[in-house]
């Protein structure tokens, strides 16, 4: 399983801070996004192609081509605004 976590505005709009997704449905970050996009309105909207989504795999920033493996911790979040 992939441990998927949502932060900030995503967490609020999706009304969840995370979920477990089968690795088979998410061979890469891009595949994971496609899987999420097939869900209803808010999922499709937040993860639409033209939306800015930041991603991390095992707590390091990653791009869409990053492959995922069973047990990975993935995080999806809006552009960061600290500092």
């Amino acid at each position: 399983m992939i441990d998927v976590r949502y932060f900030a505005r995503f967490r609020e709009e999706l009304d969840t801070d995370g979920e477990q997704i089968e690795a088979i449905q998410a061979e890469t970050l891009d595949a994971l996004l496609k899987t999420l996009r097939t869900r209803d309105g808010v999922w499709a909207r937040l993860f639409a192609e033209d939306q800015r989504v930041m991603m991390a795999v095992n707590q390091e920033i990653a791009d869409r081509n990053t492959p995922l493996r069973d047990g990975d911790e993935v995080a999806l979040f809006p552009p960061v605004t600290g500092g």
Partner: protein
Amino acid sequence: MIHVRVQAEPLDPHREVDLLTQDNPRIGGVVSFIGLMRDINDGEKVERLFLEHYPGMTEKALQKIAEEAVERWQLEGCRVVHRVGEMAPCEPIVVVAVAAQHRKAAFLGCEFIIDYLKTRAPFWKKEKTGNGERWVDARDTDDEAEKKWQAT
């Protein structure tokens, strides 16, 4: 030499500068950046600020940015401390304190760290105004600030 920390308690920037410089007579210059909570954003009065972060990743991201700065400009040390949770106007949100033998390295190292922190460290600001709460949008100028370090 490198110290990064995330804390819910109020931040004391002066203490970070003191801890950075104590007992190191090689240091010729210290540059520090203190980010303070403003009471106005996008023309609206802000009463409170809430800072969310991604525990674990935040510390790793800050450590990585600090290590890169220390190596790139041969810094004598740096301390990066970021506050999370709820805060009020005029309170420090972040302090980046950088020490080097010469001033130019200290300026570059400090600005590099805050520029990268702004675009890569997983913090998110939510403001409370008279009209309710709102997430703060990322600014394009922050992306541009980060990019300039890649060109050099």
